[in-house]
């Protein structure tokens, strides 16, 4: 019996802006088993990051979790006080952000950024914290770690900064790590290194990881299960292998076709249109304006998440009828 570390059910996180209510996350359910890596996939604005922020309860204003439940290690996170949450952030769950150039505080040295957190959560002296910081840098593969400890963020390269951001997230050995597009702002070669590092660290620390990305290549490489999000809703959930070989949702198919491959002979297919306005989302199925299989019913009624087989759910009226194209890994 696998243990469920994180259970998000029917989460709704809305942003109450002056222009209207933005339904960034609108009824998302995700389960994460302990020790596994799952992917949250979708375009920008699909609600991936807001889902992570909701779990950490750091949704920026004017956003608010309006409904749903989040259970972490059997405990209800939404009923916790801000003080209780603060003790969880760091030692229990942590996040690596997309852009390492802005996620490190520019006025502090690397050492200060790491020891600060260590001393906040663990009962360490300054010297002990410095020692731990040094070993963390070695762990994330930083060359000349003693020297880098004394450096300021602007003196480091993007890849190095992201390694330090990872070291910072891992400093208190969290059980659950969110990686919010951790490689999007890095060069391709550095991307591969950072992904490899995350994989290796996950094994080493026995962490559970939630990989937030729009890159199906990273999904294939890193994750065991995937949840495909679109406009704040779950489109499809499946094992990574199943999702790639037999996708049941047109959006998943479109995402897979939008990935370039070396052997490719046909032109790269793009998904027409843009992610919808989340203040007034489309009626019925949120994906219907961009879906090439859409029929009248898609405009009128919203499809429920239906079970294809054990562990594979899809929200599409026509999943039984469509013959969708997957691709090998």
């Amino acid at each position, binding site marked *: 019996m696998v243990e469920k570390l994180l259970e998000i059910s029917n989460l709704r996180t809305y942003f109450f802006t002056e222009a209207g209510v933005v339904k960034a996350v609108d009824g998302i359910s995700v389960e994460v088993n302990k020790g596994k890596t799952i992917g949250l996939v979708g375009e920008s604005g699909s609600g991936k990051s807001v889902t992570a922020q909701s779990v950490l309860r750091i949704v*920026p204003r004017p956003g608010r979790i309006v409904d749903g439940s989040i259970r972490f290690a059997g405990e209800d996170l939404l009923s916790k006080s801000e003080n209780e949450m603060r003790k*969880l*952030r760091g030692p229990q769950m942590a996040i690596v952000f997309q852009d390492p150039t802005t996620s*490190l505080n520019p006025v*502090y*040295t690397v050492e200060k950024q790491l020891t600060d957190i260590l001393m906040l959560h663990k009962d360490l002296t300054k010297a002990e914290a410095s020692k731990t910081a040094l070993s963390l840098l070695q762990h994330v593969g930083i060359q000349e770690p003693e020297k880098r400890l004394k450096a300021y963020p602007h003196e480091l390269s993007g890849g190095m900064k992201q390694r330090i951001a990872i070291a910072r997230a891992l400093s208190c050995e969290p059980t659950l790590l969110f990686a919010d597009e951790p490689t999007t702002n890095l060069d391709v070669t550095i991307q591969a290194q950072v992904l490899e590092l995350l994989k290796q660290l996950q094994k080493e620390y026995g962490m559970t990881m939630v990989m937030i990305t729009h890159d199906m290549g990273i999904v294939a490489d890193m994750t065991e299960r995937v949840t495909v999000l679109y406009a704040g809703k779950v489109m499809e959930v499946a094992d990574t292998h199943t999702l790639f070989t037999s996708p049941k949702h047109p959006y998943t198919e479109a995402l897979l076709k939008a990935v370039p491959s070396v052997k490719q002979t046909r032109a790269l297919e793009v998904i027409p249109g843009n992610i919808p306005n989340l203040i007034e989302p489309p009626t019925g199925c949120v994906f219907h304006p961009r879906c090439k299989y859409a029929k009248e019913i898609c405009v009128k009624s919203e499809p429920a998440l239906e079970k294809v087989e054990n562990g594979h759910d899809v929200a599409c009226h026509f999943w039984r009828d469509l013959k969708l194209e997957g691709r090998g890994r």
Partner: protein
Amino acid sequence: MPEERGKRGASQWAVAWRRFKRNKSALIGSAIVVFFVAVALLAPYIAPYPARSYLPLYEGDAGSPPSFKHPFGVEDSGIDVFSETIHGTTNDLYVGLAATLITTLIGVAVGAVAGYFKGAISDVLLGLTQVFFVIPVLLLILLFARVFSVLVFRGLGLTLIVLILSFFGWSSIAFIVRGETLRLKEMEFIQAARALGASSYRILFRHIVPNILSPVIVVATLNIAGFILTEVVVSFLGFGDANTSTWGLLLNEGFSFIRTDWWVSLFPGIAVVVCVLGFNVMGDGLSDALNPRLRE
């Protein structure tokens, strides 16, 4: 700047100092400031006469023009202008620095809270800042100075002026700090700090405030000059403390005899101009050195 890497982390202060050192006018400004601070600190040792002393009257020098014995001349009442200008340096710098210290503390606290939190307290603080920003401060300062010195705090002397200037002078810093806090609190590293368990208090004072010290330091330096100037105006208009040596008081006393005893007004006037200029030029230099958009 590869050779600078690694030696020692180039903090924003190290970078700023390097740029500041290369700026000639900033260095001249700093030299002026250092000179005035030295005079202020050493006043009891370098001034030939004690403060507000009429001794030259008994030496028969009352009203005498500049000479070797009295480099800046003597007032008709017998006060040595050179000594008085030196004692005035101490007192005027005290006013400028003390008022700047108090207003900076108030301004940073008010601005940070008003910028970081949302709700009634922030709205009230912002409203207060705006009110203090637009009211005609000088008139109120004069009014307060007169009313309080006559009615309430007789013995406070210059400290009363410091308190009044501080009460009316914190809004510019508060505005800057609020604006910068609004900008910074949306930055990813603030979210990262929150995601790693930092409390609001910690985020505000360990992560946001250190990031806005540069503009605060620049404005505070310029404020020193501003407060000195305001004190001079208050004293010149006769609303200051008549028992404490200040440049403004000398200007006030000299004003009546400006046609005959020009030296009573000239020398403290020069002191005011040079000192204020020094702080302003140094502030401009700091502004250039600390401006992140002007990286070399």
